[in-house]
């Protein structure tokens, strides 16, 4: 007997699917379509009299050296902050998983950072990393001019990377710890009885078993570092100095909302969307092969 629910007529099936399709259309495809339409026109902010310009917006963006600098800055930011956030989280999760004294406390404390909103944590890090007033002021006392995010682009980039990674360490930590604790104790204990050391056990048993989690977090971290960073940039550096931290998503925000250039911002967000799609395809195509799901 057929167990699946079937409909006598296909139209009834469609009818049941309509609410779902409508939701997807309203919340995903309609805004995306709107962005595509805007990117092909010149929008007057107050509405009325929009001019069709075809691909002109894309041409002018791609001919702009500042835009290419912002792509480079975004890639550097995404690469380093993802790497930092994942490695630190993995180390902390491994230590917590070994049930050292107080590991339950660490578990709670390490999850907190992810709960803090980006602007709040950016304010905190702006103070901590301020060259004249915060923690780094002490370092500057010893080596004058060592730390100057106000004029040194590399220092400014370092400060937004530190703030962003700090937040995602908490997020990654939860997933890593859950993955590590899902590994049967007996496997690790058996290896220990065979005389393998901590690092060996990690390399040959734990690491391969958590590769699905690592892959998942890699995709999420890279995507988020492209999209979720503008609050931190806005408060800590406002894209400066001299565009050093003008990440793609921040440029979209400042051109669109502060500069009222809706069309240029729409075209940039299409490019950003394409870039994220390409990166995600790349990850699934080449990195997922190394993942062991069973």
């Amino acid at each position, binding site marked *: 007997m057929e167990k699946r629910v079937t409909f006598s007529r296909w139209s009834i099936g469609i009818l049941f699917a309509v609410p779902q399709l409508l939701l997807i259309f309203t919340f995903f495809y309609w805004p995306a379509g709107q962005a595509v339409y805007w990117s092909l026109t*010149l*929008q*007057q*902010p*107050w*509405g*009325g*009299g929009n*001019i069709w*310009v075809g691909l002109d917006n894309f041409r*002018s963006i791609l001919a*702009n050296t*500042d835009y290419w600098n912002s792509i480079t800055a975004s890639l550097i930011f995404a690469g380093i902050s993802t790497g930092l956030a994942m490695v630190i989280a993995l180390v902390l999760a491994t230590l917590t998983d070994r049930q050292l004294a107080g590991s339950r406390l660490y578990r709670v404390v390490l999850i907190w950072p992810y709960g803090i909103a980006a602007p709040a944590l950016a304010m905190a890090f*702006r*103070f901590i990393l*301020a*060259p*004249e*007033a*915060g923690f780094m*002021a002490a370092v500057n006392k010893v080596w004058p001019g060592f730390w100057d*995010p*106000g*004029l*040194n*682009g590399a220092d400014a980039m370092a400060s937004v990377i530190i703030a962003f990674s700090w937040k995602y360490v908490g997020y990654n930590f939860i997933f890593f710890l859950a993955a590590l604790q899902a590994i049967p104790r007996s496997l690790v204990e058996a290896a220990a009885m065979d005389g393998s050391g901590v690092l060996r056990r990690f390399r040959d048993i734990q690491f391969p078993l958590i590769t699905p989690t690592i892959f998942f977090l890699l995709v999420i971290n890279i995507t988020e570092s492209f999209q979720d960073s503008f609050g931190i940039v806005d408060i*800590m*550096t*406002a*894209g*400066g*100095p*001299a*565009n050093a931290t003008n990440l793609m998503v921040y440029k979209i925000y*400042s*051109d669109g*909302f*502060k*500069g*009222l*250039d809706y*069309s*240029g911002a729409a075209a940039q967000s299409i490019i950003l969307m394409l870039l994220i799609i390409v990166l995600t395809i790349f990850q699934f195509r080449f990195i997922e092969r190394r993942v062991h799901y069973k």
Partner: protein
Amino acid sequence: MSIIKQGLAALAAGALGLTLAQPAAAAPVKFDFWFGLSGDLARVVDTLCKNFNASQSDYEAVCTSQGNYDATLQNTIAAFRAGKQPTVVQVYDVGTATMMLSGAYYPADKLMEENGYKIDYSDYFPGIARYYATSKGEMLSFPFNSSTALMYWNKDAFAKIGKTEAPKTWEDVGADLKALKDAGYDCPMAINISGNESWQLMEQFSAIHNQPIATENNGYDGLNARLEMNKTKFVQYVGDLKKWYDAGLIKIKSKDLGQDMVQAFASGTCQLIMTSVGDHGTVGKTQKEGMSWDVAELPVYAGTERKNSLVGGASLWVLSGKSPEEYKGAAAFLNFIHDPKTALFWSTNTGYIPVAKSGFEYMKANGFYDKAPYKGREVAIASLTASEPTEITRGIRLGNFTQIRAEFGTQMQAIFANKVSVQEGIDTLVKNGDAILDRFQQTYANKTLP
């Protein structure tokens, strides 16, 4: 259970009572006013609204802060596109060109005339009025909170180098900074070089020296204006600032570095800053105990005939698409704000200056400028009225000026970080700024400035 029931019944009765009571009391016509000030200043605006509402019973202004100027403009545009715009909105100076081309406003002078209010427009200080007027002189919006840039100087520090006056020329500034440094002051002068300081460093400087920012009389004569400050005295000025910075005579102070200019001056760390007269109150309230300081007009280069400085701040726009009753309310509100008594209230509680001669005279007659915390603010009026506005000093009318200011910050940072030379940096500022203007002109291809 019965308590809840009783509560509900009471609520229902209350609601019924309200609906019944309304027609009898002839409820005032409500209209929305959105503004961009926050914190201390927002509380003053709230009081202003309360005073207006208490002054008559026909209208009620519902005043809502949108946080800051940028957000106010963004939210208003979003609301306008959704047909839910406020009746009156505060828009900052650099948004004026965008507003004029929006087609979304109800001209303020027309509104006042149609509702029977006689406003004497020659009463406004010309430097303030012309910033917000069309090239034909029609007032599309009314100036509200106005300011201009001044030089704040520490009298104690200057006394140490034998000076009893603020420097009047940039040549003097150079000598004084050196003397202050030699007298042991670590930070003779503080500046900031983000996009916002384009106002003091580029715009005010250019106006006082009668140097253009852009062609077409700073954009007043058409959307085809293009930047040209890479060919003016501005280049020499940036060169001097950079030279003094390299010599340790100027320090960069900003919030992200730990201390902004105003704090650095008020705490006695830095001896000279250029900032808005709007900060006069803040310095007075937060200054180091017993520190003696004063304000002066911004310096000029030797041999320059000083012109009026530019107004900063914001004006009030009335938006289109509202009912005649709401417009009546808006007209009454604008008339209330224009009143000299309101000017006195406003200037006492903020650092802003009166926008009309009548307000200024009224305040002078009340002895406002003789008293300690407000003494010195009349320098702002002197600076704004130093000359009749010229074609160049009446204001700046450039599209997407916010983006040009951001570009100013970017290039100044590149110059101060030694990435490019002074001339290269300003050339790039002009090139990128022109691209922004070009884009604005294309967007409004079918429109011209009123």
